């Protein structure tokens, strides 16, 4: 059968170089977006393939042969399986998707190929948001839609020549026109309160506090500048030295590190006598843990969480998305004034056969100060302050008797080391003590009145039980480095931080956080619960799914009507000359020279010229111009009509001579 040549402009025609360049640019952007969570060699290899294919098609139009393409495909799948062990799941799936997308470019020759590529590219763009849904990432992905849309435009035949800027503007215009409807749909598409299937990728480890602490495992946390939580206070914020946020209480020491005891179900929550109280609201970033940090020491647990015996707050389920909760805490308090024997015993637990020198030192102090526990605490703090200890995020490694090594030989470390050794020292001296981890400090954002607490503000301190005062918070790190408490972690670390964490940049980042907070609250944190309360300002307490659907339908119809109005609207071909003449008539009418209904333009303007003798020449010139444009020719040129209308605009009638 003879093959009929297809008319041009159908799906089989090879795409032009502009469309191909735009397609390549889209893919390059996607690759850049995904590079942070792909193995670096895969990103590099894909970038190389992308660049090569782009260069190759510039030389000669045509598909890459199958003998080159198929091995690449096989290699990609093999590499993904070898690296991740599977092709399912978020990371391997993404690696495979991005790889396939780049390989798709190898055979992108016709319109159909390019369209399939762009559809897939849009998918890959959205997938990037599964890794990071911050404001910047979202904006970058939104901008990534622009080259994709431009590619689709470039696939159309017979376009008027247009600059890259014009194309960009028309695509931006399309997106902006779509924005109201998109926002509305975003607000009204019913959210699920619980996932229907699966849970978001459990494999990913977010840095955060954990319920055990071995010296050194904070290091990663202390160099992570991501926000951990944001706190707004009812009333003035507490002073810097009271900004301790309690997360875990660790009472079990195994010689290497500290662990949280699983709570005894019969144990009662420690009694507290509150002095001054502070109310606040915390927005917590996802931690994938149950703990809810609260200002030291919490009085009640927020909704859907439990107060633990040692006054930690654990949520009913792990925090997998940003949540917000209100709390009340006592900043002056007496916690567990009466210590029962079991608690006392737990507070003195130490493994046998570790840290002999520490034990000896504690015994020596006990001998010297007798039963004065407070004096022993002071002696230990004085030792930290004056004993030549250094605060550093990169301490020397410690041996088996880690506390001995730290206290007597290396003398350097950060909060974990100090809290840990102080607590061991206290226990060895017979004073009930425990380690508390959480956050301390934070950046007070004056612009929006909230406290930004970063992961790097993670901190560990001690609590010792003193007769008559209950559990007292003691921060041995403060003895070594008072700035840690008053100025924050960044100040304490001093010049050990990288160049990009200098003060100026830090300041910019802190200010920028206002925007991030807004984004997290308004967009990322918009969940089923918030959606149900959407219509509270309008008196509807609970907006259910049916209501949302109805609203979505109504507003969509509204937008469709608006869109149709725009689509059907046709600009009347206006008579510019007549419009200009009307303007002149209005100007003259303001001076009392009104055109009569039966009066022709010549008569009217001559009359106006007589009434305004000072502007007689101007008016006569206007009249002659109008007459020649209106009556001397059928289609006056656009330029001369414009000249007339400019002359009318510049004409200022003076006062009439009566």
């Amino acid at each position, binding site marked *: 059968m003879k093959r009929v040549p297809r008319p041009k402009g159908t799906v089989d025609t090879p795409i032009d170089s502009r469309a191909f360049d735009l397609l390549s640019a889209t893919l390059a952007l996607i690759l850049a977006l995904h590079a942070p969570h792909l193995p670096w060699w895969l990103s590099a290899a894909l970038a190389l393939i992308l660049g090569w294919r782009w260069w190759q098609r510039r030389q000669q139009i045509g598909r890459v042969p199958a003998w080159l393409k198929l091995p690449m495909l096989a290699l990609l799948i093999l590499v993904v399986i070898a690296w991740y062990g599977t092709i399912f799941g978020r990371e391997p799936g993404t690696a495979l998707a991005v790889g396939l997308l780049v390989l798709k470019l190898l055979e992108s020759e016709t319109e159909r190929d390019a369209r399939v590529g762009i*559809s897939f590219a849009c*998918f890959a*763009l959205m997938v990037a948001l599964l890794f990071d849904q911050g404001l910047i990432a*979202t904006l970058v992905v*939104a901008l990534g839609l622009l080259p994709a849309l431009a590619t689709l435009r470039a696939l159309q035949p*017979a376009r*008027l020549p247009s600059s890259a800027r014009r194309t960009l503007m028309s695509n931006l215009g399309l997106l902006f026109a*779509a924005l109201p409807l998109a926002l509305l*749909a975003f607000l009204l598409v019913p959210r699920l309160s619980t996932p229907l299937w699966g849970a978001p990728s459990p494999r990913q480890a977010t840095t955060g506090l954990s319920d055990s602490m071995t010296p050194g495992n904070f290091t990663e946390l202390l160099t992570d500048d991501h926000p951990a939580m944001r706190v707004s206070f009812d009333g003035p914020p507490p002073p810097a030295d009271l900004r301790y946020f309690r997360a875990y209480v660790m009472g079990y020491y195994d010689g290497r590190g500290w662990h949280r005891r699983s709570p005894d179900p019969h144990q009662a929550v420690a009694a507290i006598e509150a002095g001054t109280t502070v109310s606040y609201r915390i927005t917590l970033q996802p931690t994938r843990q149950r703990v809810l940090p609260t200002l030291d020491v919490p009085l009640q647990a927020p909704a859907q969480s439990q107060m633990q015996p040692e006054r930690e707050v654990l949520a009913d389920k792990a925090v997998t998305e940003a949540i917000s909760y209100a709390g009340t805490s006592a900043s002056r308090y007496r916690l567990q004034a009466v210590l029962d024997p079991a608690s006392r015993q737990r507070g003195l637990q130490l493994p046998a056969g570790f840290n002999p020198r520490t034990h000896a030192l504690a015994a020596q102090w006990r001998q010297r100060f007798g039963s004065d526990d407070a004096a022993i605490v002071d002696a230990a703090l004085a030792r930290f302050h004056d004993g030549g200890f250094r605060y550093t995020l990169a301490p020397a490694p410690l041996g088996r008797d880690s506390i001995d090594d730290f206290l007597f030989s290396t003398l350097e470390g950060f909060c974990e080391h100090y809290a840990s050794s102080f607590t061991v020292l206290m226990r060895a001296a017979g004073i009930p003590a425990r380690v508390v981890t959480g956050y301390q400090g934070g950046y007070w954002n004056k612009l929006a009145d909230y406290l930004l607490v970063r992961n790097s503000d993670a901190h560990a301190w001690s609590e010792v039980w003193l007769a008559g005062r209950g559990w007292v918070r003691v921060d041995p790190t403060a003895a070594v480095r008072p700035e840690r408490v008053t100025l924050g972690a960044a100040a304490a670390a001093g010049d050990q931080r990288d160049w990009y964490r200098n003060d100026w940049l830090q300041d910019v980042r802190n200010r920028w956080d206002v925007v991030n907070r807004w984004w997290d609250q308004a967009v990322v944190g918009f969940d089923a619960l918030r959606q149900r309360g959407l219509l509270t300002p309008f008196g509807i307490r609970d907006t259910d799914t049916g209501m949302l659907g109805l609203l979505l339908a109504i507003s969509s119809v509204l937008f469709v009507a608006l869109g149709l109005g725009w689509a059907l609207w046709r600009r009347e071909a206006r008579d510019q000359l007549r419009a200009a003449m009307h303007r002149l008539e209005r100007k003259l009418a303001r001076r009392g020279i009104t055109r009569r209904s039966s009066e022709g333009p010549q008569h009217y303007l001559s009359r106006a010229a007589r009434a305004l003798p000072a502007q007689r020449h101007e008016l006569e010139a206007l009249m002659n111009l109008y007459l020649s444009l209106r009556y001397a020719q059928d289609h006056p040129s656009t330029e001369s009509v414009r000249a007339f209308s400019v002359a009318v605009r510049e004409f200022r009638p003076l006062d009439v001579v009566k």
Partner: protein
Amino acid sequence: MAGLLQRAQQLAERRLPSLTRYRRAEKLPIELHRRRIYIVPTGFGLGFSVFPLSIQKDTLNYANNAALLLTCLLGAASAASMLVAFRDLDGLRLGHIRAGHAVAGQPIELTLAFDSSRVRQAIRVELGRDATAFAIDAGVVMHLKLMMPTTRRGWQPLARLRVWSSWPLGLFRAWSWLHPEQAVLVWPRPEEAGPPPVAPAEDARHMRLLQGDELAALRGYRVGDPQRHVAWKASARHDDLLVKDFERAQNRPQWQLDWRRLDGLDDESRISRLARWVNEAHAQQRHFSLWLPGNIIANGSGPEHYAHCMNALAQLP
């Protein structure tokens, strides 16, 4: 498959005239307006919607609001592109159509004059198998050339034109039928071979030696050339005398082509023989006259005369 579709379409036109009423022929100029523009999603548009939908279900399940927001944005932009596609066609005007000349069996060239009050891009026009695309600027008349196949001589009504556009994203296709009430005249196909129109002797009788009065060239002086033919000004710049040479347009015998002399042939054969002679005469730049039943065309030559004669042949019953 294609035949089935065509039959279904014919059935629809017969049974559902209210849906297909704009497909009947109408007078030029034709301006497209909302009541005759249809919009359907393209295959790509349907495929493209699968991706956002598949993402949407995941974003809802995992409460990924950023992705949901952008998917909504993409969806809304796609929907808006439908209106842009509609606006691309709405108000487009087909002013007039000029037809070229073609003999039966060869495609005839049509020139379609489109105009518009605003910029439109990527508008495609299909006529049978021929398709072309154009973009048009505001206030400009766009002349579009399309070829239409012809089958036999005489008046042939214009086929239906399909105008469509999937601007800007190719997700939706807005389309409309244009069926102008206009016919094109198709000339008769000349026969392949046959006898010459007249005997040579008769030819000689009509031979005239005429001196034309059109200046054709300059040549060197030959003895006997009249003095008034010497190009004095030009000669002043040369060594020799130059003489103006005048064309002799009428140096061939003129033909009298007559329907009545072609006895023993049926009408169509007569027409195709006359068409061949007219073609030959035109190619040889002869003067000729044509006698047809009911139409006598006087002696003449040149393209207009030729077209006149061919039109007359085409219109014979």
